[in-house]
Structure formats: C-alpha cells, structure tokens
C-alpha cells in the first residue's frame, strides 16, 4: 500500500525519530512504512495520520 508519509514528514520538517515517538512506534517501523514495506493496522495508520495532521484517506493511497 502506497503512502505519502515521507512527503508529509518532510513538509512538517520532522525526523523519523520524532514521528515514531508521536505515533508510539519504533523508528524502524516508520522506515518500513515510508518504503511501503509494511501495511499498518488501522490504529497505527490513524496514529501516523494524526501525527502528520492529516487523515488516513489522504495519507494512504488505496
């Protein structure tokens, strides 16, 4: 599943570590998400979307 995490994170000017802390996951999980190598649960998708001040449907491309 494609997503715009990297793009939005760059716009917000925050590091992977900071995003991971806000979403309550490890930095490696953010790396995997940005590389489209991991499909998150609905909860994590929502947490990441919230951390990036957007919504799930705008963040993930279904």
């Amino acid at each position, binding site marked *: 599943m494609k997503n715009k995490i990297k793009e939005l994170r760059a716009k917000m000017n925050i590091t992977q570590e900071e995003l991971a*802390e806000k979403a309550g*996951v*490890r930095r490696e999980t953010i790396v995997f998400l940005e590389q489209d190598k*991991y499909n998150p649960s609905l909860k994590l998708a929502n947490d990441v979307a919230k951390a990036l001040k957007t919504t799930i449907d705008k963040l993930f491309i279904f």
Partner: protein
Amino acid sequence: MELTLKQYQKIRLVIVIVLAFFISQSIVFRNFFIPVILLITSSLLLMYFRKKVKGVIADERDYAMGGKSAFLAMQIYSWIAVVFMFLFYAMSDLNPYYYPVAMTLAFSTCILMLLYSVIFRYYNKINFADKKLIYSVFILALFLAIVLAFSLRLFSGEDSWICQNGQWVEHGHPSLPAPTANCD
C-alpha cells in the same frame, strides 16, 4: 530512574552472560537448584528494567513478525522432533539410551502443540467472551491436569531401577540398563 533502549539492551546482555556462566557452572557441579533461582531472579530483573525504559521497545510490527516467526519455529521444531523421535525409537533396540531421548522429543512436541492450541484458542475466542475468567481458569486447569498426567507418567518410577541393600534391583521393566552410579 529512566533507561534508554540502548542501556536496557546492555543490561540485558550482561544478565544473559552472567546467567549463561552460572548455568554452565551449575551443570558442571550438578546443582540444578541455582539455575532455577537465577532464571526466576533474572526474569524479574528484566521485567523491572523493561518498565524503566523510556520509549517503545516493541511495536505492532515486532509483534506481527514475532507471531509469524514463532509459528514457523514451532512447525520446524515439531517436524524435526517427530522425525528424530521415530529414528531414535526405531534404534532403541540397538541402544536402550535412545528410548528416553525419543520419549523426550515426543512429549516435548505434544506439550508445545497443546500449549499453542490453548493460547490460540484463548486469543481467538475466549479473550472476547463474557465469562472470560471462568473459561481461562477452566482451560488452565485442564492444561495443568494434562501436564501433570504426562509428568506423573514420566517420573512415576514404575519402570526403573531401585537401590536395595547396595544393589540395583529392577522395578517393573526398565528400558535402560542399571545405573552406573554407586548404590549405597
């Protein structure tokens, strides 16, 4: 006192090294009481330090990978254990020492499968049930009863050697030859 993930990992490594050293020494000195105490103590210590870690130690991706890895590891172990169990059982006529090895492999595989089924059932249904506590206690009791039955069969001493008047005497039909240790 808060710990970083790296500090926690260092502490964990030290505990594992100390534990490995003491367990190996305990085996050499044939003292099996110390390793059990050490295992419990180190588990409690690790639990304590884990709570002190600031930040996330494991997240949903780790748990997902852990689940897949555990399932695969269980399948691989079961297949290997079953194949070797049959091999050792078939060769136990040539060497009676192979028989307990075969039985250990068979019983360990059974207990592993049983434990997996119980835990799977718990997460699949009981975790969401209304009478969760009653179901949990019942399944735990059932599991303990089965483990106890296996243990009693294994350690019952029905077919073993007994030390009587300075001599090893057959009790039942032991599959192993008489112990080589002195019988006083």
